[in-house]
């Protein structure tokens, strides 16, 4: 399992994450910022635990994000 987090408040709406991993991210039509799909919301952060299948895409999103607001971690369960 991996854990993905998105600090949406700081998103500048560049669209790269939604382009790379449409299964994980979508651009919100409401505020033009990225949304982490199926995530739970806590404060400024959106968090998602998902299976390893998405690891490569998630890491690619983390790498290309210009404002570095996407984090990806391994989780035990």
């Amino acid at each position, binding site marked *: 399992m991996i854990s993905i987090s998105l600090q949406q408040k*700081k998103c*500048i709406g560049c669209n790269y994450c939604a382009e790379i991993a449409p299964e994980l991210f979508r*651009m919100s039509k409401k505020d*033009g910022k990225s949304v982490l799909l199926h995530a739970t919301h806590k404060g400024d952060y959106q968090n998602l635990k998902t299976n390893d299948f998405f690891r490569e895409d998630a890491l690619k999103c983390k790498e290309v*994000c*210009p*404002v570095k607001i996407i984090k990806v971690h391994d989780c035990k369960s």
Partner: protein
Amino acid sequence: MDKINFVSKKMKTKTMELMAPAGNWESLRAAVNAGADSVYFGVEQLNMRARASMNFELSELKEISAFCSQHKVKTYLTLNTIVYDHDLSIVKKLIDEAKKQHISAIIASDQAVISYARSAGMEVHISTQVNITNIETVKFYALFADVIVLSRELSLNQVKKITTAIEKEQIKGPSGRLIEIELFGHGALCMAVSGKCYLSLHSQNSSANRGACMQNCRRTYTVIDNETQNELLIDNEYIMSPQDLCTIDFLDKIVDSGVKVLKIEGRGKAPEYVKTVVKAYREAIDAIENNTYNTAAIETWMEDLKSVYNRGFWSGYYLGQEMGSWHNTSGSLATQKKIYIAKGTHYYPKTQIAEFEVEAQHIAKGDSILITGPTTGVVESSIDELYVNGKPALLGKKGDQITFRLAERIRVTDKLYKLIPNPELQ
């Protein structure tokens, strides 16, 4: 009688509007207090300084508008990035809120923004991102906008031809007033034409045209011929970093060229930068109006401008005769440097005593200080008499509670810095 009235009215006409950057409340208050006629700022992400630290939130528009209106300062919301389909909703939301809160105008470049702002009845100003360099383009944008910034790469002769044609051909904007020409007056210049640069996007996926420039041009580079492996001999490794624009020493020529709005760059700069630069240009514009603009005054303003962040100054392309002038060191050539010392803890208004808690370094009697905060703005002073933990002292150290006399009220959100000569320039 009529003649006298006419003269006095004419004298009151502003020579040139001074427009200042506001990246946060500290800078906004500093700009207003230093004498700006208008301020420009971003809200949320769709502007050329999209990172959150240089922007306001939508909910702050009301307070910005109220504060500026109280001081008779115009408010311009920058909405000038490339706009994608997924941005259209937030564009509309921002413009609707700007209209509701009586923001004076929207600074725009994308046609979607221009079109919606006009349909919402907002005044539009054309952004530097549009790169306007001739009178026909001015005529085109006059269908939508009342103020148009010209390309920074024009000479003042070219600017004058455009302003003369506006007057002669009576080119008016939607407001019915003659189109006003705006020009960049001071601050960072970009190595690309009107900021249209893709270096940051190509190297770091961070688009300057979405307000996320990583400033590749401000780094050092070596140039190597891959075929021969020979390195090109360059006397300055900062091969793409232009010096900063400064026009204070020929501001009279800018006024003569018919420019109506002078823009100061720097939404990412510190509040004391905004205060110092706005104050200098305010005094210079007023001096031109009062016929007291002279060499001695220019020298004083130049010294003030050099005291805050700068990469060295040049006149840009306005005077036409110079080739690009390049910066040759890392960071700033500011003659002054600020060091963080303490946080605000209390202010005693009756006795005008400011109290701070020292959190780093130390502060001594006689030191020059800078205080910044979202409500206070920028205050510069010196410590004539210092009390540490309630007793007269010469030095306050980390952990000490210091008090000193200060005419301006300070707050718990304020930070106190010591101002010292920049050691890198000694």
